């Protein structure tokens, strides 16, 4: 097990380097001039050149990358934004909790929807419940996240006025007119729903299939042959096994979800990592882009590691091999 973990950690390191390098390379392939963007349209060639030097853009690319790594490892700093010289660490760390709120709240919501519907559909195949949940699945998977977000925003937020349209409220203290848990949740209901529908759909289908398969397993038949009541069979034998793969999927999907968060944050005006990524891409702000990439990659790697360990803990076949 330890060997396995060490190997995963080493691979994680390799992955991290690969991702950051690729980001750098892509950035420098795009024909745009961040120095010019930084100093504005009407700048003179000299000021552009000065800006370029100041930002370190006149050094060869590998050198820039090496400096980036050095700064990251030794100073633990992601540098300063090209556009407004803000400390990238601070900006990223400010945006992160917002994205986390969206993602984690979305996860809880989608599991709360998917688990009961998935399990019940599996227990009553071809019933009305099952058929309607499959329709829901179809819609959820087919409808683009953007479309769902906009529709919800328009109908529930604007037309019906049940929830606010946009904006984020801090969980803890008030800022800009709203604060505290209730405001926080209230502002996030629509983003959570938007975000969760797609994943809920995917998970309903997966849970349904897993539970149906597990119900046919030989060991479930053995449990019934022992005289176990149906509830115990479900709890102890069926669900325990059927939901194992859900754990792994969840870990991977939380990682992917970060990507989906971009749409949700943009539509609902939430100043999270997604919005930050979009902004920094528009202004070719390399340190900020790298900052978002580094942070997201770290999160995904950590999540996947946690899932791997968790899987080994709950499945004795992996733990003891």
């Amino acid at each position: 097990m330890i060997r396995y973990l060490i190997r995963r950690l080493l691979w994680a390191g390799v992955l991290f380097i690969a991702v950051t390098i690729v980001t750098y390379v892509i950035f420098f392939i795009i024909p745009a001039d961040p120095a010019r963007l930084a100093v504005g349209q009407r700048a003179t060639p000299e000021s552009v050149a000065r800006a370029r030097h100041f930002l370190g853009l006149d050094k060869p690319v590998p050198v820039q990358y090496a400096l980036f790594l050095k700064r990251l490892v030794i100073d633990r700093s992601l540098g300063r934004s090209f556009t407004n010289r803000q400390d990238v660490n601070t900006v990223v760390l400010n945006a992160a909790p917002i994205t986390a709120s969206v993602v984690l709240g979305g996860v809880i919501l989608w599991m709360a929807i998917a688990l009961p519907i998935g399990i019940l559909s599996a227990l009553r195949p071809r019933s009305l419940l099952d058929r309607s949940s499959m329709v829901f699945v179809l819609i959820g998977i087919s409808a683009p996240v953007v479309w769902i977000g906009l529709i919800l925003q328009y109908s529930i937020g604007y037309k019906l006025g049940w929830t606010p349209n946009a904006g984020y409220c801090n969980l803890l203290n008030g800022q800009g007119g709203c604060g505290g848990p209730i405001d926080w949740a209230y502002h996030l209901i629509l983003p959570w729903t938007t975000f969760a529908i797609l994943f809920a759909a995917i998970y309903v289908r997966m849970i349904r299939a897993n539970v149906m398969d597990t119900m046919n397993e030989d060991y479930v038949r053995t449990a019934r042959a022992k005289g176990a009541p149906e509830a115990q069979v479900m709890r102890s034998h069926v669900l325990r096994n059927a939901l194992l793969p859900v754990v792994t999927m969840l870990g991977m999907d939380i990682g992917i979800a970060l990507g989906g968060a971009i749409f949700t944050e943009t539509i609902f005006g939430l100043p999270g990592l997604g919005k930050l990524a979009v902004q920094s891409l528009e202004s070719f702000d390399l340190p900020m882009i790298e900052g978002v990439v580094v942070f997201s990659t770290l999160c995904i790697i950590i999540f996947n590691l946690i899932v791997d360990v968790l899987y080994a803990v709950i499945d004795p076949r992996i733990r003891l091999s």
Partner: protein
Amino acid sequence: MSDELLVVENLKKHFPVTRGIIFQKQVASVKALDGVSFTVNRGETLGVVGESGCGKSTMARCIMRLLDPTDGTVTFDGRDITRISQAEMRPVRREMMMIFQDPYASLNPRKRVGFIIGEALEVNKMGSGAEIKRRVQELLDIVGLNPEHYNRFPHEFSGGQRQRIGVARALAVNPKLIVCDEPVSALDVSVQAQILNLLKDLQNEFNLTYVFIAHDLNVVRHISDRVMVMYLGTVAEVAGRDQLYSAPKHPYTGALLSAVPVPDPELGRRRKRIVLEGDVPSPINPPSACRFHPRCPRFHEGVCDTVDPPVREFGDDHAATCHYPLESWPLTEAQMRRAEEPVAN
């Protein structure tokens, strides 16, 4: 042209087990085959019997060069094919074909039966399209199927019929040798008889040579001329069929014979039973010296677990690898335990 069609000498196949964080290092190996030698003469059937882990399927694949042997030699029709390239192997493949165990998995469900049977003919360019079609229909008839079903898919046939398709496929190129890897294990008893009769008939008609692998001793006895018993990657005993079943020399063969259930209650009651202890050990860590020593009723400490057992000959074409071969047969378990001094060679 010699009588020996297939000669296998000291065949070994080890699958590496690797561990390591970054660089994978081999720490152990699964010794699926650990020194197997035998010959198959033209026109005869060699039955190969053994339980799980004995290496019989691995051996089949090594003979056919579907796996590359780790050591030893395979000589087919006078030619050493152990290490030749895949390109050089291609013409040889026309001479040796295989019939597989699972009639449901060994036929491509998306291809029509005519294609499945004729594919080898096409690959080896043995005739024009029309000639191949005619040959395939001929084969369907030979194996007892309707030639009009040329265009059907495998799922339209029953298990027994699918196995007949497998036989037709093997026959298509007129091979010299057919390796049958448990061809009737997955079939019902009544269908099993159909396939066994078919294989026998075809052998007589086309002068085929079979290597017939099975775990059912009754089936092997019915179809084989000579029988080889394998245990954990080695050959325990090889003999002519009647010899093996009436006068086995290796204790494992004895145990196998007494363990096979016989459909005759009276005979079953009279029979002397030898029940082995323990399970078949893993080929990753096989027991030292004689592989069978941990379960053998005749185990002699200091001999069987330290000295490799010699191959003893018992008259014409009967060999057993044992320090204390059985003196007579049948024996009870108690009699088996009372082994005398190791027989001097």
